[in-house]
């Protein structure tokens, strides 16, 4: 369990890459109930002008916070979480897509012993989630 007093703004607290495949998208569609076909059908994705089948924005948001959950040790410590969907994640049928997450301390609130953790979420050099921030209660 991370201790609030040991943290400083700018500290990297977690780093992880996620390898997405089409299977990941189908699994998330079933788990979340979001069956928009742009997340599994190439023909429909192309028809609506997309470069290919996209990961659900909520899937990317969902796994991007997991390194923070593991660092905090308890999913219940994440009391606020937000993100902007700045760029779609195209998932190639053969190659998939790799999403890199870096979690850094953005701000510390001594009164409530909470840390704002800022997430950098990228595919290659491109940021896919903007203003991705989680507020985490610490001891």
């Amino acid at each position, binding site marked *: 369990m991370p201790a609030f007093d040991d943290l400083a703004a700018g500290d990297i607290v977690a780093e992880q890459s996620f390898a997405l495949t089409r299977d990941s998208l189908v699994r998330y569609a079933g788990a979340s109930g979001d069956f928009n076909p742009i997340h599994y059908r190439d023909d429909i994705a192309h028809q609506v002008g997309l470069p290919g089948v996209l990961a659900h924005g909520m899937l990317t948001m*969902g796994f991007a916070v997991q390194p923070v959950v593991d660092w905090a040790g308890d999913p219940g410590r994440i009391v606020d979480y937000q993100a902007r969907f700045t760029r779609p994640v195209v998932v190639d049928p053969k190659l998939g897509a790799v999403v890199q997450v870096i979690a850094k301390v953005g701000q510390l609130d001594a009164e409530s012993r909470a840390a704002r953790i800022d997430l950098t979420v990228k595919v290659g050099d491109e940021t896919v989630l903007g203003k991705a921030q989680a507020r985490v209660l610490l001891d």
Partner: protein
Amino acid sequence: MNPELQGRTFPPTEPYLVGREKVREFARAVFATNPINLDPEAARAAGYADVVAPPTFAVVVQERTLAQLLAEPDSGIDFSRVVHGDQRFTSTRPIVAGDLLTATLTVSSVKTLGAHSMVTAESSIVDASGAHVVTAISTLVVRGED
């Protein structure tokens, strides 16, 4: 989009019973590996009644309110042009398997930016006792005609 949607509150959704296997299924789908998400024993050891849902699980309940919004006859929202702009979850406590949740949607803002419109939808999710659990806030962007 109909600007008069701003400020509109919808009727509460049918109660949603959070199942343990649903939480585990969702947790696996978002690559969660924390035992508190997956193992009832680990969750109890951490002080919870059952497995704890991942931070974005509320979207499953919120989705029912967004369906209400898109089905509203006078919304003027063309579903095929809707893009998810941003998302936020503000929690009072985490969702735990066994919770019976009800969501109430309020359209907090409707804006037009050039050809595009943006609607911000806030779904307040409460438990069986009426206590607040989490508010899920989505901004949906409705793209204008090309």
